[in-house]
């Protein structure tokens, strides 16, 4: 066992033991552990295999920057790949699996990839694509996909809830470390609404677990607790732990994910697992801290090599020693604190290796007091050990000439704590700001100019000292509330005391990569997660990919799930060195959201399953469902397709239903038709302008079919409009175009004819409608409507009259879509179900049959009535045989462009009917051709739009659009060609009205 739990220290609750498994093996840890700390405490050092080379990897960090220790958390539908062991909070029963290894983590066969290394260099995929032949990819793809990649997504549905919500505030503070807390406190004291979000389960940031720093004379941790208590006591402050603000979008809108129940095995009490927050705020304080940077050397990915501050955090927060004997390799002061704290916690520090010759006195004294060996003017040239670090190779370093000496010593160690300085976490600032600016003092980038209302403070702004963080935070909090319209009083800057040896990361000597002057040239990793080496960066440069954007895409540096949190700056530095330019000259890649990965569940929220999209139901919906109708969607509406009887298929059902209408009586739910109230003194004039046919002469109590054109002269929509009063009209539209027609009318009233006193209102939902059709429809209605004369004189064709149907107020309109004598009965939607029931009961004596959309279609096709498939936006009134509906006497929308030459050519596609000559069904979408065989169909002469079997004439028929229309083609034999689905069947061209051409059946 190499790692262990320290006897004391840490924020874990040692009385609460938690059991968990990793790769099926049982372990235990404490409440307050992360998966990484618990495994380290159990002596586990091998966490996973690397992306390309399948090299053994351990824990590299203690936070969200973790490139190595990626595991699949949970199992089954709850499995989540690529979660970082360093941020997974331990819970009872946690299950985790290692990734990217087979057959096991210990014995991974694909680790042989390490030997084939040169093949897997930068640009591997591009080179393979362009390989010996293009077919190379086809051959290799299967194997490459098997071998590469991180964890696998679960194939089962996730049983947990994910939700989305909205949040508003004056000031959002991202990060609850010292800077963020100071900012939030100042902002909150002004009375502003403040949201303080932090990705960790607790506030404190770098002060979490800090035992030596003091603020205003009290331990820093107490200051954190006191500040948080003051904040959370205020009604307008919301503290959101476990909440990652991942994206900064326009108008100060930020995206955040709250991991509500990720720290539990399963969410309890209807909690979502995660909740996505869209945060809108006046001002933002970005206090996201900094991430420690590695140094690149041979074997720097060996398990046991990790960031220096991570070793300290495991000790401070979880009371875990990451090893027994450590070497610390640093180019700045900050890692000395790690060395000293580890030593004080009982870990043997074999040496501190520092390329600098001059080390501050406070540090050398502290080191000497503890008897730690300090190798200044030295560097680490290699780390060795396979699955666990065994030796650290050290050589002299001359800072003046920047030259590495011959390796002179191999130090035994199981841990190598590395610090190459600190990289500010500028993701959000970069998303909503100008180009980041290189700061020589810290050899990294700090936020550029803010392009939205934000301020970056603390370590993410390059200020690493605690006192600086607190005063900058407070100042930013004050500025932020002022942006939001509040006045702020200055918060006194607290007195800060930190130990003399608490050096900051700003004191560094920039060194990026250590190369031995001679000897072995092993792999030196820049991007640990994507296995990009220093040599890959140089190869990219040699092959011409010098721009940082090209470097990223060619080598995949910085592209993985960690988005290069530990590798970007080092990669840039190496490219700069290869180009012999400075880092700012080479540039930096900008960050896009998300800062850390966001689950698809959080982005989808509750829009899954039957919540995917809303469903629109008519008042009679439940009856249709109870009657066993096949329900189909029509836009968002649900409509009955057919009411199948036992043993019937859809065909048999709609044929029976359509026949019943022709022979007796049927009824159909037409509540979905668009309905628009057109009201006002100028309503008639308005209708006359929007329809192509005249509306000036429509009398009260009558309906008229209207054809509406678009401005470009093509047909837009059709329907009947009923005149209910002097200035009151009810316009009906097709189901599909209801919203569009309303918007069209509103647009015209708002912009074209604002002087017209007309109001249009959607009343689709106000009315339930039933069409009662067939020779017995009148008798059926007469049996239940007693206060209305339903004779041809009382309600003539196109007549509209109010009445009462067994106590229900109704409007009866004599309209026919089916070609039979028919009535549409409308009532208030809340009466719809009762109306339907009463009509069904009344119809029983007449053999009434309910029919669905399929029979509705059959009846209208038999009559040659056009609908959606014909009103497809490419047809004119003339094309559809409705030229007579286009008035020559008045102006209306669409008339000028309808008269264009091209819309009046003789060879335009015109509406015809076709009858299958061989008795086979026709398919919509088939092309009409003259060629006799499928092999030689000839050119398309048109297409079939609506098809059905016609019970009335016992044939398969269709409406079609044919070049030249009916006149030159009548009785012509053509073929309906359907090359994609197969089929080449003879048809005869006929008039589109297949049945009762003179309309005698509806005028009785």
């Amino acid at each position: 066992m190499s790692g262990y739990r320290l006897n004391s220290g840490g924020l874990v609750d040692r009385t609460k033991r938690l059991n968990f498994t990793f790769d099926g093996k049982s372990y235990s840890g404490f409440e307050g552990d992360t998966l990484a700390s618990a495994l380290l405490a159990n002596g586990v050092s091998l966490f996973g295999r690397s992306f390309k080379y399948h090299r053994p990897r351990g824990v590299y960090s203690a936070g969200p920057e973790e490139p190595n220790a990626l595991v699949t958390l949970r199992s089954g539908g709850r499995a989540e790949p690529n979660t970082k062991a360093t941020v997974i909070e331990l819970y009872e029963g946690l299950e985790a699996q290692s990734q990217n290894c087979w057959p096991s983590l210990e014995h991974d066969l694909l680790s042989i990839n390490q030997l084939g290394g040169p093949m897997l260099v930068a640009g591997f995929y591009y080179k393979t694509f362009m390989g010996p032949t293009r077919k190379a990819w086809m051959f290799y793809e299967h194997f490459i996909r098997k071998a590469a990649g991180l964890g696998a997504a679960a194939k089962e549905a996730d049983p947990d809830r994910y939700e989305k919500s909205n949040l508003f505030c004056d000031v959002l503070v991202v990060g609850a470390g010292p800077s963020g807390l100071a900012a939030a406190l100042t902002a909150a004291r002004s009375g502003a609404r403040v949201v303080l979000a932090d990705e960790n389960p607790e506030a404190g940031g770098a002060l979490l677990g800090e035992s030596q720093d003091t603020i205003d004379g009290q331990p820093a941790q107490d200051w954190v607790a006191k500040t948080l208590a003051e904040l959370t006591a205020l009604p307008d402050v919301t503290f959101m732990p476990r909440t990652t603000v991942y994206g900064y979008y326009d108008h100060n809108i930020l995206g955040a994910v709250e991991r509500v129940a990720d720290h539990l095995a399963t969410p309890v009490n209807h909690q979502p697992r995660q909740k996505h927050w869209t945060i809108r705020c006046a001002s933002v304080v970005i206090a996201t801290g900094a991430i420690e940077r590695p140094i690149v050397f041979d074997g720097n990915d060996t398990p046991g090599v990790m960031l220096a501050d991570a070793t300290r955090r495991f000790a401070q927060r979880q009371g875990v020693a990451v090893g027994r004997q450590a070497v610390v390799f640093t180019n700045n002061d900050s890692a000395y604190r790690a060395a000293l704290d580890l030593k004080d916690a009982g870990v043997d520090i074999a040496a501190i290796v520092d390329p600098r010759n001059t080390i501050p006195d406070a540090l050398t004294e502290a080191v000497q007091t503890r008897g730690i060996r300090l190798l200044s003017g030295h560097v680490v040239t290699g780390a060795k050990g396979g699955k666990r670090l065994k030796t650290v190779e050290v050589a002299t370093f001359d800072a003046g000439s920047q030259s590495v000496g011959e390796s002179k010593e191999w130090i035994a160690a199981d841990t190598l704590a590395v610090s190459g300085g600190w990289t500010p976490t500028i993701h959000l600032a970069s998303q909503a700001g100008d180009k980041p600016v290189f700061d020589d003092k810290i050899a990294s980038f700090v936020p550029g100019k803010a392009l939205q209302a934000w301020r970056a403070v603390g370590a993410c702004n390059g200020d690493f000292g605690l006192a600086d963080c607190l005063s900058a935070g407070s100042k930013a909090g004050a500025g932020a509330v002022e942006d939001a319209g509040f006045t702020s009083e200055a918060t006194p800057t607290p007195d800060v005391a930190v130990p003399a040896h608490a050096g900051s990361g700003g004191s560094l000597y920039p060194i990026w990569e250590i190369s031995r002057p001679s000897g072995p040239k092993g792999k030196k990793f820049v991007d640990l997660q994507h296995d990009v080496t220093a040599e890959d960066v140089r190869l990219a440069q040699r092959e011409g990919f010098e721009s940082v954007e090209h470097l990223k895409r060619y080598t995949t540096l910085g592209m993985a799930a960690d988005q290069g949190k530990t590798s970007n700056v080092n990669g840039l530095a190496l490219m700069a060195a290869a180009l012999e330019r400075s880092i700012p000259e080479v540039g930096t890649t900008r960050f896009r959201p998300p800062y850390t990965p966001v689950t698809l569940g959080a982005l989808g929220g509750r829009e899954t399953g039957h919540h995917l999209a809303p469903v629109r139901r008519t008042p009679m919906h439940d009856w249709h469902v109870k009657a066993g109708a096949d329900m189909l969607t029509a836009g968002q509406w649900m409509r009955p397709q057919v009411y199948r009887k036992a043993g019937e298929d859809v065909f048999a059902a709609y044929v029976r239903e359509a026949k019943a209408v022709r022979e007796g009586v049927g009824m159909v739910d037409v509540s979905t038709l668009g309905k628009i109230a057109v009201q006002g003194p100028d309503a008639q004039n308005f209708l006359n302008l929007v329809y192509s046919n005249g509306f000036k002469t429509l009398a009260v109590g009558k309906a008229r079919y209207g054809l509406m054109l678009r401005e470009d002269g093509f047909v837009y929509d059709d329907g009947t409009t009923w005149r209910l009063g002097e200035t009151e009209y009810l316009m009906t539209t097709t189901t599909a175009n209801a919203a569009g027609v309303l918007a069209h009318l509103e647009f015209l009233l708002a912009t074209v004819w604002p002087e017209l006193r007309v109001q249009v209102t959607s009343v689709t939902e106000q009315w339930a409608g039933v069409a009662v059709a067939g020779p017995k429809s009148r008798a059926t209605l007469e049996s239940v409507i007693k206060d209305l004369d339903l004779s041809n004189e009382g309600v003539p064709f196109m007549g509209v009259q109010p009445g009462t149907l067994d106590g229900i107020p109704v409007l009866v309109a004599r309209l026919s879509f089916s070609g039979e004598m028919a009535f549409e009965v409308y009532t208030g939607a809340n009466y719809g179900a009762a109306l339907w029931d009463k009509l069904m009961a009344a119809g029983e004596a007449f053999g009434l049959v309910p029919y669905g959309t399929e029979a509705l279609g059959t009846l209208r096709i038999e009559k040659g009535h056009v609908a959606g498939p014909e009103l497809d936006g490419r047809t004119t009134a003339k094309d559809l045989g409705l030229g007579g509906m286009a008035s020559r006497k008045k102006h209306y929308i669409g008339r000028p462009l309808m008269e264009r030459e091209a819309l009046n050519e003789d060879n335009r596609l015109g509406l015809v009917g076709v009858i299958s000559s061989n008795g086979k069904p026709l398919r919509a979408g088939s092309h009409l051709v003259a060629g006799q065989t499928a092999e030689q169909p000839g050119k398309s002469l048109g297409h079939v739009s609506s098809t059905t079997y016609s019970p009335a004439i016992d044939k398969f028929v269709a409406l079609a659009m044919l070049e030249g229309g009916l006149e030159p083609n009548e009785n012509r034999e053509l073929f309906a060609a359907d090359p994609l689905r197969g089929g080449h069947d003879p048809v005869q061209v006929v008039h589109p009205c297949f049945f009762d051409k003179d309309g005698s059946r509806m005028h009785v």
Partner: protein
Amino acid sequence: MSNLVYALEDAAQPGVYGAAGTEGPGVTISEHRPESMLQLGAWPDTQASFEALLASTLNLSVPSRPGLASVSSEGSLLVIAPGRYLLVSDKPGITQQLSGQIDADQGVVTDLSHARAGIRMTGRNAADVLRKGFAIDLDIRKFPVHSVAQTTFHHIGLTLHRTDETTFELFIFRGFALSFWEALTDAALEYGYQVAGAGQ
């Protein structure tokens, strides 16, 4: 059985659902069935006289701008756009009364009594439930009592009226009412919700 069947009659079954907390359900939800919902519209040049007529007939002062409501014993008048109002009233005969008073030169009355389903939601978590569906700041200082908004929740259009700090009345297109109810109650699960009988 009544001839009237309301959109949420089957869905809104009284009971307590969702998370159980020590404080009891976070919201109470019920179907709200006003007698009448009327859209009233003035012409640009008649808005002042139209509002005067509404004020005297409904015994209230018409709010000065869209996004506000005024309430009296005659009903709630929601200003939904310049010169456009939604009257929600339980007064019998109000439709006929206003239709008689408002001639076409003055403005129009459009009956939407059947076109909307009403829902009333009240309780300490009412705003928490609603903000899951739309991005309107429901802080009482930003959206005070008798504020009105037209927005969408789960892709469904609705009109929202805050009647007190923790109570909201929602008017939804009838055809979407059940889908809306499912989405709303789903959003309320984590706080726990009680369904009360209609009109309570």
